[in-house]
C-alpha cells in the first residue's frame, strides 16, 4: 500500500449519520487527547464525524472546508468528492464548513492535515515544513502552505466512494439485487435494466445501513473530472458580478462600520468625535482596542465620519522608522544570532580560505499582502452566541480568540466562511475579525458589517519581512567550490503565532526556506538563518520564507555561475541532485529554447530555480531595453506537482504566482516612517498591471509527489528577472524592488 494509503487507513474511516430526510457521509477520525486548547471537544476514545457529502430529498451538498481565496480550493475539493461519487459537481451545492447544521460543528473543528503527528516520513515532514504548522497543532483546520490538495486527495475521494457504494447498497437492498450488478452515473444508481434511481431518493435508506468501507479508489485513467480541463463552478458567478464575497453580505437591520486603528506601538490618547457624531447616518462612535470605529447606516458614511474624528495617539518608545529595521537585520548578522543551519556540507571555511572570495550583500523589502477585497467581517452578537461571516484561513483560531474576547463558550461562536477576494496570506490574521466583534458588542442583536478602507489595509498589514543576506562564494576550475549564505530576518512563525495563539519556542524553518533546502550538490555549501528582532510585526506572504530567500539564493548563485563562466541553466542542471527537479530544469530548457544568457544587443535572459512546499519550480525571464525603459518580453515557468488535478486552474496558479513575484520584484516595497507605512494605497504600491505582464508559457510535470501550487510559482520569479537584467545590462541588482535601480517600461 502506498504511504498515502497507510495514512488514510490509520487516520480515518468514512462513516455516515442520518440527517433530516437524508444522510451525511464523512470522515470518522479517532480522536486523541491533544494538549492544546483548540483541539477541545470530544472525550478521549470517542469519535467525531467530519461530513463531506450531505444528501437529502432536495439535493446534494458537498462540503469543502478549506478556504477559497482565488486558488480554486473550493472547486477542487468538490471535484475530488464528485469524481468518485459520480455526480456533476457543478450541479451540487458547494459549501464551506462550518455551516448551520449544528450536529457537526464541533467535529469540523477537528479537521486534520493528513499526517499523524508521530509520522516522521518524508511526506509528513514536507507537509509540516510546508505549512509551517508544528506537529502538535496538526489538529487545526488551516488553509495555507499549498496544503489543500494533498490534504484532500485521499480523504475526499474516499468520502465520495463510500457514499457511492453505500447508495448502491441501499438500492440493491430495495430491489433485491446484488450491489455488484449495479452501476452509478450522474447522481443515480443504475439498475441492470437501465432504470435509474436518483441518489436523493435513496438517501434516507442509505442512512440506515452500515456504510460500505471496502472501496477501491479509481485509478487516474478512470477519472472523469480530475485531470481534465473543466469549468470551475465559480467561473460564471465571477464573470457576471454574482459571486458573493464577505464584503457583499447584507442582512435585515444591518449596520455598517469602519475603523481607524493606532499606528504600531501606539494607543488612543484623546478623541474628538463631536462633529462625526452629528453627521448624517452616523449611529455611534465606538472605541475599540487601540482604535476608533464609526457605526453608520452605510459604509461611505462610516468612512466619511471617521475622517472627521481627530485622534491623538500616544506613542510608545518602540522604533518607528525603516532604518531601525535595517539596523536590526545588520545587527542580527553581526551578533551571530543563529536560528538554524539547515545546510552545512563540506568545509566552507577552508574552501573560502583557499582563494579569492566573491562577496555580496542582498536586501529585500517589506511587502504588503493587499488583496483586492479589503478586510471585512460581519458579526452579530447575542447573549449566548456570536455569529461571524468572514473569509478566514484559520477558523479554529477565530473561534478560540473570539470566545476569549467575548466570554462566550466556543460552542457559541459560529464562523460562516465566505468566498475570499484574494489573500496571499492576509486572511491568516485575526485583527480585522476581532475589531468587528468589538464593534458588534456595542450593538447587541444587530448584524454589523465592518469594512476597512484601503488606507487602513496598508496601514495595518503585517507584511512579508524585510531581509538582509550576505553571500560568500568561491569559484575555481570552472565550478562553484563554495557558497555560504547568511540570512537575517525576523521570524514570521513567532510573530504570527504570537498574535493568533502564543509564540512557540524553537527554530523557525521559514527563515531559511527556499535557500537552505535546495537540492544542489555544491561541494562546500552552507546556509545559516539569523533571527532578527521584530521591529514591526510580520506575517506569511505568498510562499512565505521562500519569497525572499528565493531571490537571495537564486541571485547569488547566478553571480557565482557568472564568475565561473558557467551557463546558469546548465550549471543548475549539473548541480541538481534531485531527479524530479532536474527534469523540471530540462523541461524549462526545452520550452524556453535556452541557449544562454545572451540574447542580442540590449536583451538578456535570466533563469532561477527554487524548490518550495515540495514543488520544484524553474523559470526563465527575457528582458529587453527599450526607449521607454526595460521590458519583460517573455516568461517561462515549469513546476512539478505530481498529479495535475485541475489543469486549467493549475496553469493559472503557476502563471499568476510567477507574475505576482515579478510585479512585486519590479515595483513594490513597504517602508515605515513614523510608525506607519509610507505607502497608503495602490498609487504607491503598483504591483503589476497589464502593460507590464509578458506573454508567459507554463508547463506542469507529474513526476514527484502530489503537491499544491498556490505558492511555489512565486520564489523563482524575482531572481530570474534580476538575473535577466544582469544579462542584458551587466548590472547586478542586489536589492528589491528593482525599480530602485532600473526604469521599467
Amino acid at each position, binding site marked *: 500500500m502506498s504511504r498515502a494509503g497507510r495514512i488514510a487507513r490509520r487516520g480515518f474511516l468514512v462513516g455516515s449519520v442520518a440527517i433530516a430526510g437524508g444522510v451525511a457521509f464523512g470522515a470518522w477520525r479517532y480522536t486523541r487527547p491533544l494538549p492544546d486548547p483548540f483541539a477541545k471537544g470530544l472525550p478521549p476514545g470517542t469519535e467525531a464525524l467530519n461530513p463531506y457529502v450531505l444528501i437529502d430529498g432536495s439535493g446534494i451538498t458537498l462540503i469543502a472546508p478549506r478556504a477559497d*481565496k*482565488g*486558488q*480554486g480550493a473550493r472547486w477542487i475539493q468538490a471535484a475530488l468528492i464528485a469524481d468518485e461519487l459520480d455526480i456533476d459537481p457543478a450541479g451540487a451545492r458547494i459549501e464551506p464548513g462550518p455551516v448551520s447544521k449544528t450536529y457537526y460543528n464541533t467535529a469540523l473543528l477537528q479537521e486534520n492535515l493528513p499526517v499523524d503527528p508521530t509520522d516522521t516520513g518524508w511526506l509528513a515532514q514536507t507537509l509540516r515544513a510546508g505549512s509551517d504548522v508544528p506537529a502538535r497543532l496538526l489538529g487545526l483546520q488551516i488553509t495555507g502552505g499549498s496544503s489543500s490538495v494533498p490534504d484532500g486527495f485521499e480523504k475526499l475521494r474516499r468520502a465520495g466512494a463510500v457514499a457511492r457504494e453505500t447508495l448502491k447498497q441501499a438500492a440493491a437492498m430495495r430491489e433485491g439485487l446484488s450491489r455488484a450488478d449495479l452501476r452509478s452515473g450522474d447522481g443515480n444508481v443504475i439498475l441492470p435494466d437501465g432504470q435509474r434511481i436518483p441518489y436523493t431518493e435513496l438517501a434516507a435508506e442509505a442512512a440506515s445501513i452500515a456504510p460500505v468501507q471496502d472501496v477501491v479508489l479509481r485509478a487516474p485513467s478512470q477519472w472523469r473530472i480530475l485531470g481534465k480541463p473543466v*469549468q*470551475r463552478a*465559480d*467561473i*460564471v*458567478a*465571477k*464573470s*457576471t*458580478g*454574482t*459571486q*458573493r*464575497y464577505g*464584503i*457583499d453580505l*447584507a442582512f435585515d437591520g444591518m449596520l*455598517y462600520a469602519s475603523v481607524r486603528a493606532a499606528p504600531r506601538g501606539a494607543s488612543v490618547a484623546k478623541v474628538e468625535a463631536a462633529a462625526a457624531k452629528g453627521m*448624517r447616518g452616523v449611529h455611534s462612535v465606538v472605541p475599540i482596542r487601540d482604535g476608533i470605529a464609526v457605526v453608520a447606516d*452605510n*459604509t*461611505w458614511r462610516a*468612512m466619511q465620519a471617521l475622517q472627521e474624528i481627530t485622534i491623538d495617539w500616544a506613542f510608545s518608545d518602540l522604533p518607528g522608522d525603516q532604518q531601525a529595521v535595517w539596523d536590526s537585520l545588520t545587527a542580527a548578522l553581526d551578533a551571530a544570532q543563529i536560528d538554524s543551519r539547515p545546510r552545512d556540507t563540506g568545509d566552507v571555511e577552508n574552501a573560502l580560505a583557499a582563494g579569492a572570495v566573491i562577496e555580496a550583500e542582498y536586501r529585500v523589502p517589506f511587502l504588503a499582502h*493587499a*488583496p*483586492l*477585497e*479589503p478586510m471585512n467581517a460581519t458579526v452579530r452578537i447575542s447573549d449566548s452566541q456570536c455569529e461571524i461571516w468572514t473569509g478566514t484561513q484559520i477558523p479554529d483560531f477565530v473561534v478560540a480568540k473570539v470566545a476569549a474576547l467575548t466570554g462566550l463558550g466556543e460552542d457559541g461562536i459560529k464562523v460562516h466562511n465566505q468566498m*475570499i*477576494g*484574494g*489573500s*496571499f496570506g492576509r486572511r491568516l490574521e485575526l485583527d480585522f475579525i476581532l475589531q468587528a466583534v468589538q464593534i458588534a458588542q456595542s450593538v447587541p442583536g444587530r448584524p454589523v458589517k465592518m*469594512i476597512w*478602507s*484601503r488606507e487602513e489595509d496598508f496601514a495595518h498589514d503585517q507584511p512579508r519581512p524585510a531581509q538582509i543576506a550576505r553571500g560568500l562564494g568561491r569559484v575555481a576550475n570552472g565550478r562553484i567550490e563554495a557558497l555560504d549564505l547568511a540570512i537575517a530576518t525576523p521570524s514570521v512563525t513567532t510573530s504570527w503565532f504570537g498574535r493568533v495563539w502564543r509564540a512557540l519556542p524553537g527554530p523557525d524553518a521559514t527563515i531559511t526556506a527556499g535557500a537552505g533546502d535546495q537540492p544542489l550538490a555544491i561541494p562546500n555549501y552552507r546556509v545559516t538563518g539569523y533571527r532578527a528582532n521584530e521591529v514591526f510585526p510580520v506575517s506569511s506572504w505568498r510562499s512565505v520564507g521562500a519569497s525572499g530567500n528565493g531571490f537571495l539564493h537564486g541571485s547569488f548563485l547566478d553571480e557565482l555561475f557568472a564568475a565561473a563562466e558557467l551557463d546558469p541553466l546548465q550549471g543548475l542542471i549539473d548541480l541538481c541532485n534531485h531527479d524530479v527537479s532536474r527534469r523540471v530544469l530540462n523541461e524549462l530548457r526545452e520550452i524556453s529554447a535556452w541557449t544562454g544568457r545572451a540574447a542580442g544587443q540590449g536583451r538578456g535572459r535570466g533563469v532561477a530555480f527554487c524548490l518550495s512546499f515540495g514543488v520544484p519550480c524553474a523559470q526563465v525571464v527575457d528582458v529587453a531595453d527599450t526607449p521607454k525603459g526595460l521590458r519583460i518580453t517573455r516568461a517561462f515557468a515549469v513546476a512539478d506537482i505530481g498529479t495535475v488535478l485541475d489543469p*486549467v*486552474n493549475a496553469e*493559472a*496558479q503557476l*502563471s*499568476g504566482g510567477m*507574475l*505576482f513575484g515579478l*510585479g512585486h520584484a519590479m515595483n513594490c516595497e513597504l517602508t515605515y516612517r513614523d510608525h506607519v507605512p509610507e505607502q497608503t*494605497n*495602490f*498609487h504607491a504600491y503598483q*504591483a*503589476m*498591471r*497589464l*502593460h507590464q*505582464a509578458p*506573454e*508567459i508559457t507554463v508547463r506542469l510535470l507529474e513526476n514527484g509527489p502530489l503537491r499544491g501550487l498556490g505558492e511555489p510559482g512565486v520564489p523563482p520569479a524575482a531572481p530570474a528577472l534580476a538575473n535577466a537584467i544582469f544579462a542584458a545590462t551587466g548590472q547586478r541588482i542586489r536589492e528589491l524592488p528593482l525599480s530602485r535601480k532600473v526604469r521599467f517600461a
Partner: protein
Amino acid sequence: MELTVNGQRHQIDAEAGMPLLWVLRDILGLTGTKYGCGIAQCGACTVHIDGMAVRSCQIALADVGGEVTTIEGLGTPDAPHPVQQAWIDHQVAQCGYCQSGQIMSAAAMLALQGEPDDQQIDRIMSANLCRCATYPRIRAAIHDAARRLATG
C-alpha cells in the same frame, strides 16, 4: 435624486456627494460593483455611464449625468454579454474580485474600438488592477470577445 441603473429608475435619498459606488452597493444592493481603493487606482468599481467606462468611486451621485449600467446589467449568468462569455470560456477569474471592473472596462473599450491592438488594450486596461495577475487570460479573452463581437 433620480438615478437610472440597468434600465430601472430609482429615487435616491442621499447626499449629493456620495460616490455612485456606495449608492450602488449599500443603497441599491448591487454588489457586483466592487470597492478596492476608493481613489481611482484599481478599477474594481468600474461601471458604464451612457456606455462610457467610469470609476464609480470617483463620481458623486449628483454628477451622474446619464444612465448607469453595472455588471449585473451587462449580462446575466443565463444570458452573459459576449465579453462575459469570453471571460467564462477562458476561465479568467482567480479570486474574481477585480473581474467585474475588468469586464466593464473591456466591454466599453470594445464597444468603442472594435478590434483593439495590444497597445490599445495595454493603455485602457492598465487602469484595472488584478492582484491575482490574471493578465494573460484577460488579454486572450479580450481578443476573443473582439472577434465574437465583430462577427455578431
